[in-house]
Structure formats: C-alpha cells, structure tokens
C-alpha cells in the first residue's frame, strides 16, 4: 500500500519535531548534570536558573509532543 503524499508530509513533520525534542532533551540532560555538579560543589545559586531553563525546555518538548499528537490524529482521520 503506497503512502499518500499528505501522510508523507505528516511523517516528515513528525520526524522533524522528534529530532528537535531529542536536541532539547540532550541540552536538558547536560543542564541537570551541570546544575547537580555545581550544587554538590556548594554553589547553590545555580539552582534557580537551572530549574527555570529546564522548565522552559520541558514546555518546548510538551508543545512539540502536542503538535505531534494532533498531527497524528488529524492525518490518520483523513
């Protein structure tokens, strides 16, 4: 069964969103390790910016997930 062009475009968009999420996740993992290392070294002032930036990255991931979820729902219904 051949995949329709609209479905192919949908898959491309989803793959792009997934790649972006992976990128954001790598940054978030690095951020957590850097914040933890800083905290264990006694520098507690890094905790607040670390948590704020991690929250922003999570919201970006959540937005991309909702985008993927909605696209998936729309295309499969067509």
């Amino acid at each position, binding site marked *: *069964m051949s*995949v329709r062009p609209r*479905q192919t475009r*949908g*898959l491309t968009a*989803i*793959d792009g*969103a*997934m790649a972006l*999420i*992976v990128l*954001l*996740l790598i940054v*978030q*993992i690095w*951020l*957590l390790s850097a*914040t*933890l290392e800083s*905290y*264990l*070294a*006694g520098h*507690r002032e890094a*905790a*607040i910016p*670390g*948590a704020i930036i*991690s*929250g922003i*990255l*999570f919201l970006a*991931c*959540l*937005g*991309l*997930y*909702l*985008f*993927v*979820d*909605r696209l*998936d*729902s*729309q*295309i*499969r*219904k067509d």
Partner: protein
Amino acid sequence: MSWLRRPSEAPLWQDEFSVFTADERYVNRRQFTKFLTLTSFAMLAGNLWILARSIFYRAPKYAPLAVAALGEVPVGAVKLFAYPSPRDPCILVRPADDTYIAYSQKCTHLSCAVYYARAQNRLECPCHQGYFSITDGSVLQGPPQRPLPRVALETRDGKLFAVGMEGERT
C-alpha cells in the same frame, strides 16, 4: 485550532495498535515522542529537586572548640587540630603577629594533608604540588579545583575558638 488531540472515535486499542502499516509508523513515533517528553519531565523534576534542596539548605552548626591560647603559636608556626569531628584534620597558621588563620588540612584534590610553607607564605600539598593562598585558601597552582574550606575563628577569654566551617561542600 486546538492544541489538544481531538478525542478519537475509534476504541483505544484500535487507536494505539493500528492494523495498517502506514498508521503504525505514526503510532510508533507518537509513543516515542511521548516517552521523550516524559524523560524531559524527569529532567525537570531533577532540577526542581536540586532547587528545593537549595532553598531548604541549612548550614550545619558545629560546637565551638578551643584550638589554642593566644600567643601559644609563634609567628610563622602552625598548630594541628581536628574540627568539627576528630576525623577532620585542620591547620592553624600564624603568618603575622596579629593574624591567625585556620583551614581544613585535606587538599581539595585527593585529600592529602597540606602543610604551611613559611618561606613562600602559602599552604602546599606534597602529593601533586597543589598550592593554596594563606589569605583566603584559594588555589594558586596545581590540580585542585576548589579552595580549602576555612575554619571560622573567634577569640574568647584569651583563647582561639573554632566556631564553624566556611566553604564546605554541600
């Protein structure tokens, strides 16, 4: 346009386990994206945990300990003592007539005992040549990355008391 997924008319099992190959690609990608987003949430939870620990952190209070009498240590000499527990060696230095200063004796690199080099007026670690400033314990050279924790001193009734630690790791 709503950000949220429209509720599916198909039953859940059909939505999650499609019998069509083309649809299966979507299901796999959606589930993997959900997994990645949950992992992102776990990272956020870790950061929030560090934040909570930082907010509710209280520096430990140690009981004062008499280290030496004023004038007991000659200028340029040292006295070794243990603070806050008997397993924490410290070094009291008198670099000038009216100056007393004390640090943890454990090098922040690999915990070798540092000693006072009078000629250079600095604390030196013999293991890997890590040198520390006598004025603030900062690293002058060598592999250590952190300054020496400093012992807070107070003078009471002609005696020097250790009353706390500054710059300890969390």
